[in-house]
Structure formats: C-alpha cells, structure tokens
C-alpha cells in the first residue's frame, strides 16, 4: 500500500517535471502566438466598446460603435457588407470548388504534365501583392495601352477606352477575377495530394458494387476519402478570400475605392483605423470581420469535419 503510494507520487513528480519540460519547449511559440495573434484579437474585442483616437486614452462607450455601425454607417450597411458577402462567397466557396475540380482533373493525368500544369496554376498565388498590382493594373489600364482595352478597341466593340479601375461599373468583377486567379494556393496543393493518396482499391470496390459514373464516384468515394484535406482546403480558401481585401485599394490606388464599388470590410477597417484614426470604431468593425470569418469556417467544419474528434 505504502509502496504503491510512493510509486504514484514518484510517477506524478516525474510527470510534473515532464510537463514543465514540455511547457518550456512550447514557450517560444506560445509567447509569440499570444502576443501577435491572441492578444490582438482580445484587444480588438475590448477596443470595440470604446472611443479611441490613438492620442488620448480609450474611453468606454458601451455598444455605441456597434449601434452606429448598424444604424448610421450607411456605407457599411449599403456597400461594404453586401460587397464583402458577394466577394467572399464567390472567391471563398467558388474558388474552393474550382480548386477541387482542378485537383480532381489533375490527379487523372500523368505525373510530369501534372507537375507542370499545377505549377502554372499555383504560381499566381505566390507572386505577391506588388506583382499582382503591376500585372492587373497594366492589363486593365484605362488607356488604349491597357491589354483589355486594346483588344476591345481592335475588335471595334468600344470607341473609347473603358476606365476599368477608376469607375464602379466593372470594379467588383475585376476584383473577383483577380482573387480567383490567385486563389489556387496551398489548399489547392493539399487537395491534389489528398486525391492522389486515396486508396485505389476503394474505387475498384465501388465499381464492383455498381458505381455508375464519375459524379457518383466524386460524391461517394473521392470527397469522403479526403475529408481532412477538403477541410484544410476550405479553411485556406476562406482565409485567402478575406486576406485579399487589399486588392481593391491596390487596383484603384485609393481608399475608398471608386464609389465604394470594391470596398470590403478590411478596407473599411483601414479607412477608419489608419486614415481617420478612429481606432475604437475600427476595432468594432474588425470584430465583425472575425465573426464573419468564423461563421464561414463553421460551415466548412459542418461539411467536412469528422465527428469523432
């Protein structure tokens, strides 16, 4: 009895030491993670209830920011919110569906052409902000040197160049095209390898069981067998959609974008935070953004998450 007790104490003492060592190893990551990811989120939540102009101390204003946001800020309700949802729905789930279909097709061709084609499709996602700005500003340039304008002029479809980036008419469509263009990132790569790793016997078994076409195959075999990659890809697609928020400002060269046509939540935050220095209000909008991102993720988990974990 006593022996058993001391053994237990010894064991737990060893456990504690082991636990401390683990914590020590985890510490560097944990501290940086907390400082630059966790704490900022907490501060954003707290600041959302204050008026804060960076110079004076934040003063508590309760729900004022949120009340203003939903009742007075017509730009937010009429432009920013609808824009963000339209943009995020097409670039997030839309881009996701496209990257799955591409991955699925790529998995069914030979290895060398697959590598080359995937590299071509992946490249736009890694070119970076500056490059994207340069590329698409020249392509959609509002004078006759702009590639698109030049083609339209040549085909006699228009008489004068269209100011693609300075007017509201095509602004959102252009933003969406560019975002989709650069959306095939690591989520896309994860899905390719997810499909490639599916055990081929599964397909054979399903085929023996009477599977009739590719559509059934995708629904009953491919997607269920790569759920974890599907979920990773979904999270990456959503994050990408919201992280591309700078695109409108880069294209038009101004915040706000022409007649708020491309104004997304992230631009609205920048507008209030770093142009008007209403940090409290900007933080309240940030919280809205985090909630929207979280909701999108919840949906993704509903579709592809596994119940056991």
């Amino acid at each position, binding site marked *: 009895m006593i022996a058993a007790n001391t053994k237990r104490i010894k064991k737990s003492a060893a456990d504690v030491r082991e636990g401390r060592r683990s914590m020590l190893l985890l510490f560097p990551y944990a501290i940086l993670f907390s400082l630059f990811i966790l704490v900022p989120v907490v501060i954003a939540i707290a600041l959302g209830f204050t008026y804060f102009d960076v110079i004076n101390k934040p003063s508590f204003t309760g729900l004022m920011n949120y009340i203003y946001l939903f009742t007075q800020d017509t730009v937010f309700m009429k432009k920013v919110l609808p824009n963000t949802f339209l943009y995020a729905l097409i670039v997030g789930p839309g881009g996701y569906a496209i990257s799955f279909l591409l991955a699925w097709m790529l998995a069914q061709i030979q290895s060398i052409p697959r590598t080359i084609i995937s590299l071509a499709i992946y490249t736009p996602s890694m070119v970076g902000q500056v490059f994207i700005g340069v590329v698409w500003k020249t392509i959609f340039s509002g004078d006759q040197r702009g590639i698109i304008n030049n083609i339209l002029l040549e085909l006699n479809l228009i008489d004068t160049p269209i100011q693609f980036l300075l007017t509201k008419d095509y602004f959102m469509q252009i933003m969406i095209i560019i975002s989709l263009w650069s959306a095939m990132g690591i989520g896309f790569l994860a899905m390719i390898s997810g499909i490639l790793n599916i055990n081929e016997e599964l397909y054979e078994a399903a085929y023996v069981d009477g599977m009739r076409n590719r559509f059934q195959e995708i629904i009953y075999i491919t997607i269920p067998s790569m759920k974890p990659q599907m979920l990773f890809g979904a999270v990456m697609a959503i994050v990408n959609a919201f992280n591309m928020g700078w695109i409108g400002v880069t294209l038009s060269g101004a915040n706000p974008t022409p007649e708020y046509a491309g104004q997304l939540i992230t631009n609205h935050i920048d507008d209030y*935070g770093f142009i008007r220095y209403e940090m409290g209000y900007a933080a309240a909008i*940030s919280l809205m953004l985090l909630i929207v991102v979280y909701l999108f993720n919840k949906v993704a988990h509903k579709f592809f998450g596994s119940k056991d974990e």
Partner: protein
Amino acid sequence: MKKRHKKSKYMGAKINPKYFSASQIKFYLILIPLAVFMIIPVIYVINQAFKPLGELFAFPPTIFVKSPTLKNFKDLFELSGTTGIPMSRYLLNSVLVTLITIVLNLFITVLAAYVFSKKKFRSKKVLFEINQLALMFVPTAVAVPRYLVIVKAGLLDTWWAHVLPLAAMPVGLFLVKQFTDQIPDALIEAAVIDGANDITVIRKVIVPLTKPALATSIVLTFQQVWGAVEASNNFITDDSMRTLAFYLSSLSTNNTVAAAGLQAAAGVILFVPNLIIFIVMQSQVMNTMSHSGIK
C-alpha cells in the same frame, strides 16, 4: 450477363495514371488553356521587365519582348527615391529580416510541433485546437491592436517589429505537427533509452524525419515575410529600416507609364525568389500536403 456488361462500361477513375490514354484528352483540353490563362499575366510582366522604353510605349502592346534589356533593373537600382536610400539597402534589409524570421520560425515550430505530437499534458488538446482556430486568422483584421502591442512591447522602430509578428505561423505548426505524428513513438523511446534528452531527440530524430514539412514551413514563411509590408507600413518610421517589398510597393503607387518598366522589374525581383524556392522544394511541399488534413 447484361448486368456484367453494364458494369464494365465504367471502369472507375484512373488516379495517377502511368500511361497516356484517350480518356485523358478531355482533361488536357480544360487544363492546358486554363494553365495558360493563369500563367500568361506572369509571363507578360516578366517580359515587360526586360522591355526597352520603345517597346513599353509600343502600340499595340505586345506580350513578348523583342530586344530584351536590363535597363529597367539598372534604373531601379540607381533610383534612390526621395528618401535618398539606395535600393540595395532595402534589399539587404529584406534578406536579413527574411533569414532571421525563417530561422526563428523553424526553431519555435519544431519545438512546439514535437510537444504537440509526442508529449502528453493536460491542456494539449485545447491548445492545439486554438492553434487550429488560428489557421483562419486574418492579420488585417487586427492591424490596429497589433500596432498597439508593438508600441507597448517597445518594438516600434526596431528590427524585431519585422520578425516577431510573423515568426509564429499557425499553418506551419499545423503542418509540421501533422507530419511529426507519422514518426513512430518507438523510435523516440529507443532514443530516450539510449540516454537522449528532448533536445537530442529533436535534433537527431524529429528534424531529420520531418524535413519535407520543415521545407514547406520555410516556403510558406518565405512567401509571407519576403512580400510583407505591414511592419514597414505601420511599425517602422525610419526609412533605412524598411524592406524591399515596402519600397517597391510604394513605387507602384505612382502610376505613370514611364514607370511601367520599373514596376515590372520590381515585381520580378519580388517574385523570382519565391518561384525558385518553391520549385526547389516542390516535392517536399507535396509530400507534406498529403498529411495536411484537418480531422
């Protein structure tokens, strides 16, 4: 008999085929034009960067350069802007910041991945969940609070302001941890019996066996840091401490046609290192991605 025939009509998809067959043609018909569409803008800007002034102004505009020149790159290097700081300084800053961030990121990521994968402690599951939640972290959403943290921590106008915010990368930790899960516990136990402590285990077992995931982490960190402008924009006021990406992006905001060649050259300088690193590590990245699933 009839039923048998019906079955044989559809043979199931051929995943990762070794040989070409006619059934692949339809995929090529979609994939090749698409790949061209994706890559043409990139090729266009690369060509643009090597065009002499005459070709940049040419009408109608052309995609491919006829008589390539390095003049745009030369001009870019000689241009020191209004600040009087030469581009080589920004380049040096970027290289240093990127290297330090990658090293720091690798170090803290390996340690954390080892703990999350192989150690048992109470709050482990919750903590990893938090990290997983942070995969969807959108940095721009908390640009303001991040700025406040930097100020409070006394990091404003220091080199650390470039490095520390980007060092802890949830995606990197996630991928390396998933990969570490593949290492059998027996291997680690054997090392421990031989007298290895945690650091030795990490150095001799974990690092060599998770190389693909670490390579992926390097690729991702590089992409983030090399193109990052947040720190230079918000946390640094001293021009001589800002990075190349910031300098080149501030260049592209004054949009004159004469600057088109310079901007293209700037874009190429920022993009090519990304491309090279990715191509070099491509097979490792794909290897890692097969363990990337979220359960």
